[in-house]
């Protein structure tokens, strides 16, 4: 099977055909490109315009609200002063250590027969305590009371630092270091 060229058109006509095709194709492509660019241009342009419009509207609102705020400047100053003072007071309340609670809590731990002669703070969260007790067992009881688990857990640890027997009346002198949780004494 052999193929034969049966196109009988002249060379000029063939060229004309190619030329027509080329013009048609380029026209279609360029129109399509124009439509595409036109659509994109419309989209971005309208979007930009909408944004500008929104910004203008917000500006009008902001100007109006600023005017309203400026009319109430006296109230604003008063509110700011109140807030500044209130914030400072709130901070003081939050950081205040309620020593009355500490003392009451401590007092509840002292067994009958034990007296406290001195109570001094050492550092931020320790107390030096010294006193007398009728016997060793009461000192031990006092220590147990201070170390017992309670809610709130004010005293975190209690250590006996010295204990001396008074031979004359069989009483005991003791010294204890008690650690306490500062946070448990705040915000009461």
């Amino acid at each position, binding site marked *: 099977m052999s193929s034969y060229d049966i196109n009988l058109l002249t060379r000029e006509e063939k060229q004309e055909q190619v030329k027509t095709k080329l013009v048609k194709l380029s026209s279609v492509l360029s129109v399509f490109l124009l439509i595409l660019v036109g659509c994109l241009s419309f989209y971005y342009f309208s979007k930009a315009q909408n944004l500008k419009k929104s910004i203008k509207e917000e500006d009008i609102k902001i100007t109006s*609200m600023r005017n309203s705020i400026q009319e109430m400047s006296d109230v604003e100053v008063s509110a700011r002063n109140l807030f500044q003072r209130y914030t400072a007071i709130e901070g003081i309340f939050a950081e205040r250590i309620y020593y009355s609670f500490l003392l009451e809590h401590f007092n509840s731990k002292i067994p009958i027969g034990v007296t*406290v002669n001195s109570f001094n703070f050492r550092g931020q969260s320790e107390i030096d305590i010294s006193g007398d007790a009728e016997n060793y067992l009461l000192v031990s009881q006092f220590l147990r009371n201070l170390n017992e688990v309670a809610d709130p857990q004010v005293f975190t640890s209690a250590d006996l630092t010295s204990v001396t027997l008074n031979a004359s009346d069989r009483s005991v002198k003791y010294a204890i270091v008690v650690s306490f949780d500062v946070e448990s004494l705040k915000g009461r």
Partner: protein
Amino acid sequence: MEDLLPQESQESTEIPVEDLNSSSNLALGDKTSRKIKMPNVSFIPKEKILGILINFLVPLLCLIGCGIAFFVFLYPAYQEIPSLESTLSTKTALSSQLNRKVSVLKELVDFSSQVEAYVQVTEKALISEPKVPELLAQIDNMSRESGMDVFSLNYSQSTSGDAPGMRFVDVALASSGSFESLVLFLKSVENASRLVVLKDFRYSYSDREGTRLVSASFQLQSPYLLVSSTAVTDEPIELSISSPEFLSDMEKILNLRQYGIGESSAVPSAPVSLPESASQSPLISVPETVPNPDLPSELPPMTPTEISPDLEPVPVSQENPL
């Protein structure tokens, strides 16, 4: 495509090389006249160009249109949009912030009487000036009312606090009494209408006239704060007078007790009553007349100032021992 070119372009013009480079030829001694074929591109007929333009008129017009659309609309808009979006979001945020501020201010205006009462109460709790004599009188009153005898009372101006503008007056107190009176005094300090903070204390027992007494020394601090705010339109107001935290703190402040000069016994400050219907007003109702005792120009004489031999002097220094 050769046919699309003008016929004349295929023709050539013969130019004698002699004319072009006669000096080089002379140098070489070559007198031969050689001909070079040069394409003639100077004459393209206008009809052909016009024909091409007419044939490709639509694509050309479209491309011109594309160019105009791109450079006039698309590209500038595309470039502008991010900055516009950013501006809009900033403006929207500012607008909503101002809107909130306006509503807060309107609320404050609506409850201006209560706000005024809150201002007075907070100014009483955290005063603007040191007012040392009044403070000493307050501490003396608290001590006596608790059942403690004052031995010494000293003060010094102290360092500034954490909050901007806040300063402290340091007071050292030495007193004696029962253990119960000591606890009562500490509670008085914690509940005084002018804020007093206990920084340190110590106590020891001593026998006096057959009774066992607590001799205690305290280091107290009373803060004072000078506030001078200005109206800044675009800055928000963080105060919310209807928030539970604010109301709770205000109630706490309102419940503090006054220990003013000349008050033999401290009385609770303005009674606090919550509104009948909390839903109608979120604010604590304060009586119109908040007690504001007028302070006498002169202080009553300070009684006992002798220092107990059992007590260690309380150092009042700039540094906080705790």
